[in-house]
């Protein structure tokens, strides 16, 4: 029923897809994984990034460059969002946790409907030389857009891993994730560090949004599916582990690609959510938990 060749092709495509999933999840890996912010609006912000990329790219700028140009803007946006979240919810402790969660859920819906009102429900795409063409390797065909996503994902993961382990601020972010009261005792201000880290996470999702629209057409309600994919990757990775995020992305990508080939596209959305549920039920600390 399944030849080895088909399986190899599915795995190959799964690896590319998996790196893409890792790239779209890495922002959440910082904001939710390291900072414990219940950022359900992450996929919605990412789709918002896709639409911004769409606008910038319509001036004839390459979508990846557009994504990079948008990063500082999203960085500032992230700082504003975190500041607001901190002042209204986080500062008040666990009593406000339910409301914080509801806040991000509501935010996701506002972004989604806002996009529908401005752009309509139609799918949008961007133009670039590498979209549509494929690299022919013997009998296998690898679409260039997936290769681009693959490359950007690797660069992004490597940069963030290095940033978090080598630089002073990066280590401070890790410290805040490990023991916030201790950091306070050392005379550092955890809120400022978290604000910075949340900014980075949001900035990264601008680039992730650019990749989203490179890999395929984007529509406003897309964030709903990506709630499953991104949280699946981040939880499977073990909260806040960057290399774990890459590995978890690969697991999800390969699983989804194989299911896609064996059972058809209508089952594919269940893969991420099913995997997420299994991980949550059996091993909530993930594979590479901190």
């Amino acid at each position, binding site marked *: 029923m399944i030849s080895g060749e088909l399986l190899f092709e599915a795995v190959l495509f799964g690896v590319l897809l998996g790196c893409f999933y890792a790239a779209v999840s890495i922002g959440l890996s910082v904001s939710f994984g390291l900072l414990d912010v219940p950022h359900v609006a992450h996929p919605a912000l990412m789709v918002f990034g896709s639409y911004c990329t769409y606008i910038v790219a319509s001036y004839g700028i390459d979508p990846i460059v557009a994504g990079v140009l948008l990063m500082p803007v999203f960085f500032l946006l992230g700082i504003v969002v975190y500041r607001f979240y901190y002042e209204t919810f986080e500062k008040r402790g666990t009593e406000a946790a339910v409301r914080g969660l509801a806040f991000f859920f509501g935010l996701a819906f506002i972004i989604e409907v806002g996009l529908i*009102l401005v752009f309509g429900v139609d799918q949008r795409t961007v133009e670039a030389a590498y979209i549509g063409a494929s690299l022919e390797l013997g009998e296998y065909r690898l679409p260039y857009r997936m290769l681009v996503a693959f490359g950007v994902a690797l660069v992004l993961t490597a940069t963030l891993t290095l940033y978090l382990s080598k630089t002073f601020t990066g280590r401070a972010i890790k410290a805040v994730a490990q023991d916030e009261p201790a950091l306070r005792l050392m005379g550092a201000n955890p809120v400022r560090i978290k604000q910075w880290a949340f900014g980075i996470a949001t900035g990264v999702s601008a680039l992730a949004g650019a990749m989203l629209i490179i890999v395929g057409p984007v529509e406003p309600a897309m964030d709903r599916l990506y709630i499953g994919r991104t949280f699946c990757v981040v939880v499977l990775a073990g909260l806040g582990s960057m290399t774990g995020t890459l590995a978890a992305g690969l697991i999800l990508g390969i699983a989804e690609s194989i299911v896609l080939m064996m059972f058809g596209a209508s089952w594919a959305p269940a893969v991420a959510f099913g995997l997420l549920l299994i991980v949550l039920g059996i091993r909530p600390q993930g594979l590479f938990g901190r």
Partner: protein
Amino acid sequence: MKYWIGAVVLFLVALGLALSGVNEYFFYAAYIVLTFVVLATAWNILGGYAGYVNFGTGAFFGLGSYSAVVLFKALEAPLAVQIVAAALVGGALGFGVGMLTLRLRGIFFAIATVAILFICETLMVNWRYVGGATGLQLLRPEVIQPFASYTRMLFVVMALLAIIAVSVARYVQISWIGRGLRAIRDSEEAAECSGVPTLRLKLFACTVSGALMGAAGAPMPMYLSFIEPASSFSLNWGVSALAMPMIGGTAHWFGPVVGALLLGSIQQIVTVTISNEINVLVVGVLLVLFVVLAPDGVLGLFRKFFRK
């Protein structure tokens, strides 16, 4: 006692309205508002009292609808049987979700309910018998006398369901169960240490909440004469069921009712006068405004106002 007299009077009013000559559209809109009363009240039993946020209201609601459709298609079962069956299915799913609370809290629990929602949707999309992704047209059976139309009858049925749901929520709130759930919300460890049977209470809250949501979904296919997975399992049910108690106030059984009547009516008006997209936006904006500015909802605002 006062409560029960009020409940009976309200039901009789609903019945009287359905038999009177009021415009058909009123029942069409009021049915949806009443559905939201049930959903919001059911959500609040778990979300408001115990503090477990459920994003997956659509899973219970949709499964309720689909149970009703399966029974209708296979056995031509009457509406009452469909509703009971949908409540059982919703309750069973709720029990399963309750088992998840053993390990998961806060956002992890919330995300797990989203996962359940999408898995249920995918299952129904791939189930040929109920029409798959394209859905299924349904032929309404003959309306039972003395109702002039099917929508009027469904309106009365949903009014009854709403009253049952609110009565259950009220009972849970004023009995020891509610005190136990509030203890869980404030600190699960402390509750456990003080001898509150946390697991049993959580399972109870999840099951009851799920059963009510399932029951609320059962008459929906008949109301629309149609069923399809995307709208049955929409995340929109989840955001509304969460927003309404938050807007009304989660501490008291009356909060979700106020929220559902308020937001549900606004939604109906907006859907007719402006557009369907805006009504989701209204829910989102009001939700965010209330959680930021008025954490105790409309009821909290009233209390503050009268104390001054």
